[in-house]
């Protein structure tokens, strides 16, 4: 029966090639626009660390006061100043904790490179690696003792190790970054969570992968400045590194790992308590104002998803909806034009259910054709997505099996759903009316 309906569908579609083409094109464009923008949206809005995003939190402490808040909304600054960052680190109130700031260092010529190159990475604590589940190809991260010992260690990324050492196991070797020597203790596997949730202060979250990670304590000793944002309030008076550390300038991003709700509540209490202490000590002239956001909440708060990606997806979905309305109208016209044929089939004993099936299969065929066209357009669109989005975001969009399956599934199911009403009308044709005079 199915084969027969399919045959009927193809015959019917061939009878009005223009109308069929219009429906296929409408569905193809509609689904392609939605899928292209969705391929970008899913990349920028995805969970970068799915199994741990609910256990990782970034604490915020209001060190500026309500009158000087970032956007005048009473929210605490989006990063910590040095004083608060160090206090949090020394308190050890969480299972694991790290401070992070981005650094950029030069690498002197060696081998076949005649000119220096620049490398970017992060100054972090040893907990960074287990907290964020950084995978290692060779060696390991470093431990708390080495943090305290302000050791000259470094972890390289797989890509950077490839660039400097041709990909061999470089653990134990020395590397000179920014004019200082570091001993390599580990090489990560390819690891680049997107969006880069742990570094959103002054960064979009979609930058190139980091080249290296070095101990925060060592970076401070060497007075390596931050390559990220540095935001200050009030009257600034500083004349060098130490006065900068003492200033209210915020530039350090803290992260803590908390296992459960009780741990979160405890840590929040700790933050409140710390702020209250600061108030009592006269450093803060305001009531404690702290936040503790997990990965997904932090990304939402920091508006990681570019507005243009959201708008494009919305408009594309609206466009797809119109294409479907268009399809409903055209299918209705197409089906009702065959009222005579339906009348004959019904009179010859076809049940409503069979008429239903016949027309839904016809619609499904249109949906499949639309889906295939949509797939072609999506593939073309994703490769041309650089025209529509910033390069750093465009390169995240890609066609994979799930997108292909989704494209076809959406096209077929949407078309079949659109065909419900027209098929229902067709199934309810009164045979008697259409058997006269034809």
């Amino acid at each position, binding site marked *: 029966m199915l084969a027969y309906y399919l045959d009927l569908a193809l015959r019917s579609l061939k009878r009005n090639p223009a109308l069929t083409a219009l429906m296929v094109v409408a569905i193809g464009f509609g689904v392609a626009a939605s899928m292209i923008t969705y391929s970008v949206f899913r990349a920028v809005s995805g969970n970068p660390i799915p199994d741990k995003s609910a256990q990782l939190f970034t604490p915020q402490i209001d060190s500026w006061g309500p009158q000087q808040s970032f956007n005048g909304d009473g929210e605490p600054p989006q990063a910590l100043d040095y004083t608060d960052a160090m206090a949090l680190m020394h308190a050890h109130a969480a299972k694991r904790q790290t401070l992070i700031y981005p650094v950029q260092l030069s690498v002197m010529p060696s081998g076949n490179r005649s000119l220096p190159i620049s490398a970017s990475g992060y100054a972090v604590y040893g907990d960074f690696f287990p907290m964020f589940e950084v995978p290692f190809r060779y060696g390991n991260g470093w431990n708390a003792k080495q943090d305290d010992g302000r050791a000259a260690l470094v972890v390289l990324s797989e890509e950077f190790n490839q660039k400097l050492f041709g990909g061999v196991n470089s653990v134990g070797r020395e590397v000179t970054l920014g004019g200082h020597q570091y001993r390599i203790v580990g090489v990560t596997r390819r690891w680049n969570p997107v969006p880069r949730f742990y570094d959103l202060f002054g960064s979009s979250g979609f930058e190139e992968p980091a080249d290296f990670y070095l101990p925060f304590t060592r970076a401070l000793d060497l007075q390596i400045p931050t390559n990220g944002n540095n935001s200050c309030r009030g009257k600034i008076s500083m*004349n060098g590194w130490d006065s900068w550390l003492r200033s209210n300038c915020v530039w350090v991003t803290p992260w803590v790992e908390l296992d459960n709700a009780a741990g979160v509540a405890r840590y929040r209490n700790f933050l409140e308590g710390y702020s209250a202490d600061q108030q009592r000590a006269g450093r803060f002239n305001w009531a404690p104002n702290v936040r503790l956001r997990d990965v997904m909440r932090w990304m939402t708060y920091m508006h990681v998803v570019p507005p243009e990606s959201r708008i494009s997806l919305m408009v594309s979905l609206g466009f797809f909806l119109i294409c479907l309305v268009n399809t409903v109208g055209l299918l209705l016209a197409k089906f009702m034009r065959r009222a005579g044929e339906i009348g004959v089939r019904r009179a010859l004993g076809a049940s409503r259910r069979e008429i239903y099936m016949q027309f839904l299969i016809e619609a499904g065929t249109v949906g499949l054709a639309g889906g295939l066209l949509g797939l072609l357009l999506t593939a073309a669109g994703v490769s041309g997505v650089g025209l529509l989005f910033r390069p750093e975001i465009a390169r995240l969009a890609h066609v994979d099996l799930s997108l292909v399956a989704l494209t076809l599934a959406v096209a077929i199911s949407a078309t079949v759903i659109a065909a419900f009403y027209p098929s229902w009308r067709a199934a309810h044709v009164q045979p008697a009316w259409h058997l006269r005079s034809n």
Partner: protein
Amino acid sequence: MQIQPIVAALRHHKAGTVLIALQIALTLAIVCNALFIIHQRVAHLSEPTGVDEANLFVIVNQWADQSSGEQIDAQMQADLAALRQLPAVRDATASNAYPLLGGGWDDLIMMKPDQVQKTTDASVYFGDQHFIDTLGVKLIAGRNFRADEIAPMKPRDSSTPPVVIVTKALADKLYPDGSALGKSFYAMSATPTTIIGIVARMQRAEVDTWSRDYAYQALIWPRRMDSSFGTFYIVRAKPGELAAAMHEAPKALYAQSRLRIIDPKDGVLSFAEIRHRAYDSDRGTAILMGIICAVLLVITGAGIIGLTSFWVGQRRKQIGIRRALGATRRDILRYFQTENLLIAGAGVALGAVLAVGLNLWMMQQLAMDRMPLLYVLAGVVALLLLGQGAVFAPARRASRVSPVEATRSV
């Protein structure tokens, strides 16, 4: 033309009528908002920077060695002298930023030393006495920096220079009566700074949405920043010699010292490239909206043609009867045109409400601006015209139905 019989006939095609009207309504809602987004993005990306874009380029120069501030300062002065001597170069300067950099240094501006909340925000450029000529911005009041006012500045040193040049936008914001020259303000410091010059227009380094309220508000400190990271060399080529200057300049710098990093890929940027990068998401959004609008209008138009053709086919007999009873071809044409106008009219009425609703929703969710009603009006006219254009071919086919049809197979 009587409307009543048309309405009566439409009752027999309720579903089709509703679907066309709905499609027109949704199309109107999307097209208006998309056009509004396009207009906004295009307006944003065509904002002038006020600098001599045709002849400017920027060298992103990073230091490779760990020199002291004094060594960096000496190197920068030597680099600038070398750049200015190039035959294709008109002038050069060093700064921490350039217009459309997309990020950079901002100062909060206060009018009184004890003020807590800012008066406004200004984009900060460091520059020497060559800065104004290099960028090609116009000094409209006061004077340029003198050589003796330029001083090196160490990183993380907050001492505020006593003199500053500001853009007209900043001057007008601080002193709306136009008396800014010679007056002073406080830029996050206890000591005031005096405005010695005002330039006509110069774009900020950051043109992101948050900085929209501070558009064109910028100031120039008479300083060379000895950052251990590096510096931007902004170079103005002689007219027509941009390519030559862009080719020569990095060589001249490497001849001075090889201990620097100028990225081979994007270390030397023409201003055209800078502009292209600064606005790529605006341009992309505008292109996408444009494509969607165009395809949407085509599909809606084609949908109207399809449905009307179907109706014409269905009513050949009735048309034949009308023709036999004396209706002219023009009457039949008018009939379908009026029918379409009625449906499209209902569609745009609903669509106008949807368009405004969608805009309000986007204002809430996506921080969009309020859409002027002009867009809805333009969309209404466009869709009514589209409807009339789409219905014309099937309507004309209808008008050619012969009166003989009336006699067939009744």
